[in-house]
């Protein structure tokens, strides 16, 4: 877990983000650790409510109150974002870390032309003239796949389709040439064909700009096509970390196996999907021990009592499961 490892752009270490009220605290993100290497796409996958979006917001220091980061470190480019002041964080957001949100319909300002919205970020972070920022915006529009860029520059968000708006958001996210882009379910609201195009665009940009990307999704299929490494989140924890190809061949955690079986287990003649029984626990009603044990078909008495620690399986692979302890 070396902070000194030069190859690691982002190193999240024991991060804990909690939402607290008078008498209790819910840990939406509970001691998670992972890192993203330079030039890599890291897929963070989980079902709704598992804490993946809160992880992204924690890195950006945008967790809505009463939520707050209560522990751990977020090392990014020689600094610990977890302890950074709001003022210093403002310089990093948009400039060093770009973000693409899920909902392209609501994340653009409806009364500003899209060109102005791209320039806004540029002007805030780069010391450049009006003409420069305009020509840079138009160049960005071209890079994200528009052809009539001068015309697009003057349009308003409502004149664009969902896929086009998402392209604008991507242009804003990469406008300052950040080293990390966080994409939170960027294609969930889009159709399959549009999704394909947005994904190939993101992939192109990552390699073109030499950026790294944290890609958050509930869709394993996307990570299969896009990512290099994958983390599986459940109830605020990362249960497994793996290399994408290895994960799809041989997932480690029973939850990962269940997820894969319920999606990919469809061979021609099977009569039923291998469903994971039960449902995702609420944060306020988390079970003791391993958070997955009530739904796990391999659960042992130990799983009910203790939470399994991280067990390294190989290079860049680990799992939180007692099945792998010996």
């Amino acid at each position, binding site marked *: 877990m070396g902070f000194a490892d030069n190859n690691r752009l982002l190193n999240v270490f024991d991060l804990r983000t909690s939402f607290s009220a008078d008498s209790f605290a819910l840990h939406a993100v509970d001691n998670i650790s992972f890192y993203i290497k330079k030039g890599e796409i890291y897929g963070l996958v989980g*079902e*709704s409510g598992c804490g993946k979006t809160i992880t992204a917001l924690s890195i950006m220091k945008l967790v809505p109150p009463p939520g707050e980061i209560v522990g751990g470190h977020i090392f990014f480019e020689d600094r610990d974002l977890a302890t950074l002041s709001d003022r210093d964080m403002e310089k990093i957001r948009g400039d060093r870390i770009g973000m693409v949100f899920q909902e392209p319909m609501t994340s653009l300002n409806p009364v500003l032309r899209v060109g102005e919205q791209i320039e806004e970020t540029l002007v805030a972070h780069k010391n450049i003239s009006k003409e420069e920022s305009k020509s840079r915006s138009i160049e960005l529009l071209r890079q994200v796949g528009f052809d009539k860029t001068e015309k697009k520059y003057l349009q308003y968000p409502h004149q664009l389709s969902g896929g086009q708006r998402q392209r604008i958001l991507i242009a804003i996210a990469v406008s300052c040439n950040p080293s990390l882009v966080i994409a939170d379910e960027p294609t969930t609201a889009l*159709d399959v064909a549009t999704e394909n195009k947005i994904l*190939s665009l993101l992939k192109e940009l990552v390699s073109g700009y030499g950026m790294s990307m944290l890609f958050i999704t*509930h869709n394993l299929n996307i990570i299969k096509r896009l990512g290099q490494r994958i983390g599986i989140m459940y109830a605020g924890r990362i249960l497994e970390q793996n290399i994408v190809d290895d994960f799809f061949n041989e997932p480690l955690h029973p939850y990962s196996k269940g*997820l894969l079986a319920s*999606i990919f287990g469809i061979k021609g003649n099977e009569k039923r*999907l291998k469903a994971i029984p039960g*449902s995702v626990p609420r944060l306020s009603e988390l079970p003791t021990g391993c958070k997955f044990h009530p739904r796990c078909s391999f659960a042992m008495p130990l799983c009910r009592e203790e939470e399994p620690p991280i067990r390294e399986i190989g290079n860049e692979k680990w799992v939180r499961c007692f099945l792998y302890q010996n």
Partner: protein
Amino acid sequence: MGKMLSVSELRKVYEVKKTAFSLKKDRIKAVDGVSFELESGKTIGIVGESGSGKSTLARCILLLEEPDEGTITFSGNDLLHMGKHELKRLRKDMQIIFQDPYSSLNPRRKVFDTIAEPLLFHNIIKKKHVKEKVIEIFKKVGLDEDFLDKYPHEMSGGQRQRIAIGRALATNPSLLIADEPVSSLDVSIQAQIVNLFMDIKESTNISMLFVSHDLNIVRFISDEIMVMYSGKVLEMGEKDEVFYRPLHPYTEMLIDSIKGELFKKAKVDTFDFNDGCVYYPRCNSREPICSKEMPHLTGEKEHMVACFLST
């Protein structure tokens, strides 16, 4: 095997104003000349993306939307030319399950009452026996008796969808229309509900229309697949035919995307067409002829396609 449902040349056009103040209206063909037949005991899966008209088609069949043209024949009855009372009698034989189990259940009503209501409304059972019947339905959809007195907000999404399925099955319908019944559920819960549909399919002789944007789920549950795009049927046929030998470029693209295949370089979208194929603007294998007219659905019943390049 009789025909349970037969739909012919169904059309539904919506008129929408171009902008808030304009007098000019755009005509949006939500369902544009769709014909198909559903045999009893079979399931047809309807795939397509949002805006393809698949939900409108489902709603038109149940007359939740009034179609503009076409005929719908349900077990020998012409639905578009029926009296109110006859239609009410038929309603118990055709039921629907909606996408969102949060908004499709009455929040102020216990789930027991939600399921009891159709039983009493259609005089299927006497009031004193209704509890036994509801418990039986609960068992069928995989819920135990503890849930009888709960309200929807006390239940998870998967459990609510089980209630919605129970309500639909209560009247013992011969046709069940499921409109995206699993897409609002978590991945691990989707599989449970898909399995429940399989149980229902096997234990009853129900005919189903299963509407979804997820080809994987549709393939699992259906006997036949119908691919819709922009109100038109682009491809239709037996599920293995469509899945393993797709003929339409759109179907191919859908299948590639669920296999997790790497992308092919996509052609840029074009809007240079008027009367051509509805998929022309986004098609990767488009030819000049495709911009001239919309191809008809042709081929044997096992596998039909509307594409110039596959015939």
